[in-house]
């Protein structure tokens, strides 16, 4: 295999018009459900930061050229308000990344366009109400659409006594008010389902399969099948979701190789 040093560093592009979070997906007529699937060894923090950045500012720290979409003018608004809610990470993990890549201090207590929520220390039972409240707060202020990132909500299936359909119902209610990015683990050990109803893997793969059947876009991160390499961290696959959304929002399916080095810098390459 060629080493990463020979490969050309690439920009991240998700849709056919080379956008990352397309402006068309932010139209009020259709709410998107996007999935970010990852393995345990390839966590998507860097990708989440890139997507949040693109939602807010329409830029992307991964790209060399900071593309400005012609259809978008910055008239005092951000592209989309963002809520980042995590069931597994606290603010610490993200705030360092945001500072590092974007010079943004997201730990500032009240920013009008961005909200970080964590349900690690806080009352996990009230996650749904909390997010709903924040969505309504954000959408009251502006006309632009809210994008919500939910990290590992599947934990709710095992920590609380919430059933798969109950969780999906709540996610659907949220999705009716915003675009949703759901970050979930897709380790093979969690997907090796059996016929037992209460087997973790059965619960988990049922949840994920149902979610995938609703999705408009799937981004998946996994390690190289050939094992660890010093110059490649893993691969990023962009798949269109199972449901096509609205005309002209066309996902360009492709595979990237990516490298996150010890300093946390990220590079993308074509496979």
């Amino acid at each position, binding site marked *: 295999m060629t080493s990463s040093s020979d490969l050309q560093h690439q920009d991240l592009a998700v849709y056919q018009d080379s956008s990352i979070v397309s402006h068309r997906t932010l139209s009020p007529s259709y709410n998107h459900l996007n999935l970010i699937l990852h393995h345990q060894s390839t966590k998507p923090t860097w990708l989440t930061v890139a997507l949040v950045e693109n939602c807010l500012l329409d830029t992307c720290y991964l790209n*060399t050229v900071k593309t400005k979409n012609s259809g978008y003018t*910055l008239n005092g608004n951000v592209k989309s308000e963002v809520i980042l809610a995590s069931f597994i990470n606290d603010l610490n993990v993200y705030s*360092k990344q945001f500072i590092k890549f974007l010079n943004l201090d997201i730990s500032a207590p009240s920013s009008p366009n961005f909200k970080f929520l964590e349900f690690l220390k806080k009352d996990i039972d009230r996650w749904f109400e909390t997010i709903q409240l924040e969505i309504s707060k954000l959408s009251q202020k502006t006309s632009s659409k809210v994008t919500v990132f939910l990290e590992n909500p599947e934990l709710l299936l095992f920590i609380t006594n919430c059933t798969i359909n109950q969780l999906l119902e709540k996610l659907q209610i949220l999705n009716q008010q915003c675009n949703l990015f759901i970050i979930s683990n897709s380790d093979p050990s969690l997907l090796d389902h059996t016929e037992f109803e209460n087997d973790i893997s059965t619960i988990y793969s049922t949840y994920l399969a149902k979610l995938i059947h609703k999705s408009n876009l799937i981004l998946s991160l996994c390690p190289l099948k050939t094992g660890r390499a010093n110059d490649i961290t893993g691969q990023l696959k962009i798949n269109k979701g199972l449901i096509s959304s609205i005309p002209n929002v066309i996902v360009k399916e492709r595979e990237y190789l990516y490298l996150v080095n010890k300093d946390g810098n990220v590079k993308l390459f074509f496979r």
Partner: protein
Amino acid sequence: MSFRKRGEIVGSPNVIPSAVPGRGGAPPAAPPVALPNTRQPPAMQSMPSSFRPAVQGRSAVVPQRGSVPGTLGNLQLQRPNTQQQHQQRKDEQPLLGSHPGVRPSILTSEPCISTGSSDIDKILAHQGLPIGTSLLIEENGTTDFSSTLLKIYLSQGIVQNRLNPSSQNTHLILVGLDQTWAKTLPGVYKGSSKERKKLAVKENESKVSVSNLIDSQQQQQLQLQKEHILAQKQKQQQQESSNNDLKIAWRYGLQRKSEKSEDLSESQYPNYNNQFDITSTLIPSASPKELTSISIPTRSKSYDLVLKQIEQAIQRQPPNVLIRIAVPLFLNPMIYHESQLQTTTNVIQFIHGLKRILKTHQSRTTLLISLNLDLFPRSNPMTSLIEMLSDAIIELRPFDPQLYNLMEKIYKNQPAKIKHGHLNIHKLPTLSDVGLMCVQDMEYSFKNGKKKFQVEEWSIPVEEEDTDNHNANANSSSAHGHDEPDVASVNPMSSKRQTTTDIEF
């Protein structure tokens, strides 16, 4: 190999790598863009002017942001200073300076504590376990090497706690096992028999020694200051003498190289890490003041009570006290009797609860859990969930008997080379969270030696016929440096024996 790499980082601890290569790539634009995001070396930080031209370089982005402040509010451009400064806002800083067992990570400058084994500290990439994180130790087979690691982790806490008898600085919480187990915590390694003799001579001269430090705490209070300096001196002398040994066997002491580079930081953090002799026990053993043991209540339906007790135990300690939590032999049916406690929801709730406690007290808590993979293999989705909620994961995979026999045969003359098993890394604190792929399978081997838990890069044993000469040399070097040979074969048994007795009560 990676040891040397880390050595490089140690050598230049202040240069925090730039964030830029990820952004810059187009050659013409790169240099100006580079500056604002680079964590500048200290000299540059003091010059605010260096920030300005850099901003102009980002002209494509800045006007956008420039027009925003009204709406972006607090979300606006803020100049990030070094990470340390960022952390200062949190209450982590006090411990970093004042606690003898805390030092900044060589990678991220987060405050870290030692796990009690310098080799484990090393493979965790931070030179320790960052405070506020957890380490899951998985073990295959019926051996119990992981308990050794948990014991030295606890011992390390006690040793640091006893540095200054007038004030506590560390508290231990042991979940699942009681004080009887805690009585078997290993004591500090006092050097080889030769070194011990040397020490005895010095002892007579100075009337103060390491063992005295521990035995006569009353005395200590009086001449605390003096002794501290002396202890440091002794340590240095020890190092010097070992360095002399190294000179003789410098060709064979490859892995010692990294330790040399460590010397610098060791003098800066003299009490960060100790060596433990697992054949000895810590005297006096941990008192209830130092260690809270929380048993798993029989006939309980969930872990709520355990979590509550942990929380209370932490809250009883003043805020400047470090907390080391150990959950040995998690889900071992001999300790976790109730089948109710083995159900998915309960287990995941417990692990999640532990994580919540860690994050709530993230400026002073660390956690070690050990889990047996024979009972809960990694293909078991429950293990996957436990792993998902852990910040760092290492796996101990003892060699199967054939391989062990082969090694014994090949290294007949170099018992020091015999290892006990593979050590796999599945997750590293902070790095895995950021998205680094940290899985390292079959790259390291471990050896549960008498004086240290040793981790080395794994190399396949090669049967060599005509290396008598070489063997002799290497043999002498190992005899010189450390007196491990006899322990290698004894240890696994002794540690096993300990656990069987533990489980019986």
